[in-house]
């Protein structure tokens, strides 16, 4: 009978006390939505910045005196690097075109001969595109025979790196604080909704009800509210995704993440609703003696 009682109590509470129930569901929904959305936004942003970084090219200039076979050797050396994503050979002609692009001047117009060196344009794998590895790469490759200099735009890359790092740190920082804050907001709401029902809890206690029996309806209620809040939050997030995907080509989101979203928000919602109401009721259950 206790089981039936708990179930009945839970659902009649959900229906009759709409004000606190709606407030709790809304709070959970909003908190989860903000949390997940900010997580995603900072993730995408970080991604974009890293992408910008990886736009930076490393150029390996060869000695003008390097022979064709030396070039071949260097190329195969470079191809063995697991950290390189793309490797492009830049002939004298291509270099002239780049010169033209950079200096707005056709080098062949000025001189009869093309003085520009042969080079390799290297794009490193994303995760190695940071100044430390680049410095290592530079010394390693420059020690190869026939390589004159390894060059990359360190000023810009370092600046970008700083920004990206700041975004990452701030993101993690904000998210951790946010998790706490949102948890506290949800706790607050559930605590208040239990507080509004303290008379009922007092009566149960004075009839000698055990802690579990008093708590169960609230715990279940919290879990159900968490479920609904998480569910609504997933819907909000998916709508937001659809809207953003429609508006900005920049941000691409796979539809496969939707499943993760459902699972994440709903399970997190249930968990927090469950745990929070369990502990909130406790505060009111634990006082045994009347204090009116």
């Amino acid at each position, binding site marked *: *009978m206790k089981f039936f009682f708990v179930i009945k109590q839970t659902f*009649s*509470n959900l229906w009759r006390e709409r004000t606190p129930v709606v407030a709790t569901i809304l709070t959970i929904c909003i908190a989860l939505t903000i949390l997940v959305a900010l997580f995603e936004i900072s993730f995408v942003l970080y991604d974009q910045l890293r992408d910008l970084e990886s736009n930076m090219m490393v150029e390996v200039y060869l000695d003008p005196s390097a022979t064709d076979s030396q070039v071949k050797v260097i190329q195969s050396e470079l191809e063995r690097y697991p950290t390189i994503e793309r490797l492009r050979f830049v002939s004298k002609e291509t270099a002239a075109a780049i010169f033209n692009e950079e200096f707005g001047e056709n080098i062949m117009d000025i001189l009869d001969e093309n003085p520009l060196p042969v080079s390799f344009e290297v794009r490193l794998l994303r995760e190695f595109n940071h100044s430390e590895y680049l410095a290592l790469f530079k010394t390693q490759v420059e020690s190869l025979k026939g390589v004159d200099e390894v060059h990359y735009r360190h000023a810009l890359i370092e600046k970008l790196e700083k920004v990206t790092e700041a975004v990452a740190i701030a993101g993690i920082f904000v998210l951790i604080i946010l998790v706490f804050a949102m948890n506290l907001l949800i706790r607050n709401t559930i605590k208040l909704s239990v507080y509004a029902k303290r008379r*009922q809890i*007092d009566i149960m206690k*004075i*009839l*000698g*009800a055990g802690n579990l*029996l008093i708590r169960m309806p609230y715990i279940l209620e919290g879990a159900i509210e968490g479920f609904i809040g998480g569910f609504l939050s997933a819907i909000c997030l998916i709508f937001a995704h659809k809207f953003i995907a429609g508006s900005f080509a920049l941000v691409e989101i796979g539809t496969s993440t939707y499943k993760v979203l459902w699972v994440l928000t709903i399970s997190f919602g249930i968990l927090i609703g469950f745990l929070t109401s369990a502990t909130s009721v406790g505060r009111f259950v634990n006082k045994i003696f009347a204090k009116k």
Partner: protein
Amino acid sequence: MIQFRQVTVNYGYVPGALKDINLQMHDGDFTLILGPTGSGKSTLLRLIYMDILPSSGVVTVDKWSSFRISPRQINRLRRNIGVVFQDFKLIDNMSVFDNVALPLVIEGYRRKYIRKLVHVLLDEVNLLQSKDQRASTLSLGEKQRVAIARAMAKNPFVVIADEPTGNLDREASKNVLSLLERINRNGTSVIMATHDYELIKETPYKRIYMENGEVLPGDRTINIPNKRINILANKE
């Protein structure tokens, strides 16, 4: 057996709600607690179901003592006492049926049994037709009868009735009294606080007369004072 030994209760900064009470109530007794309003009757009863603990002294109820009792034991004690609270303490948004069923649910009885028993109890207090009504919508007399039905639900070893007829008419009051008497004849102790001297005038039960937080000595017969005073109640 219920025993009060040198029990004093102070509420916050108002000392002496009860002053040095010594009492004994034996199993199976029918005890009446009489006294003007504010004299400490409810306070005395609250000590028995340990809603409050004495500021000093010891209250012993059956095998439990206020001196050393854990929250779990208090729950067990309360489940063995039926209380008709003066302010009813019904759960407002539960039905009459659920309110009466509550102590049985707490005790873990089977569903079918509860349904049958609650029907009998509600019939006894003549509220069967209101069994699905929300408690908050009852008239006060109806609430009082629900509280009485709930107190008797579990077949407790003692029933405490704090002014159980305050909202009932003469006829209904007499019926409540005879209901309590019937319970008492079956071996349950009954402790009843009341103002209604008319109702209990001709009963042979033990009387405890309180005034200003003290138990007046002896088994006083009640005589309603007839002096005409301009003020109300408990001035001596």
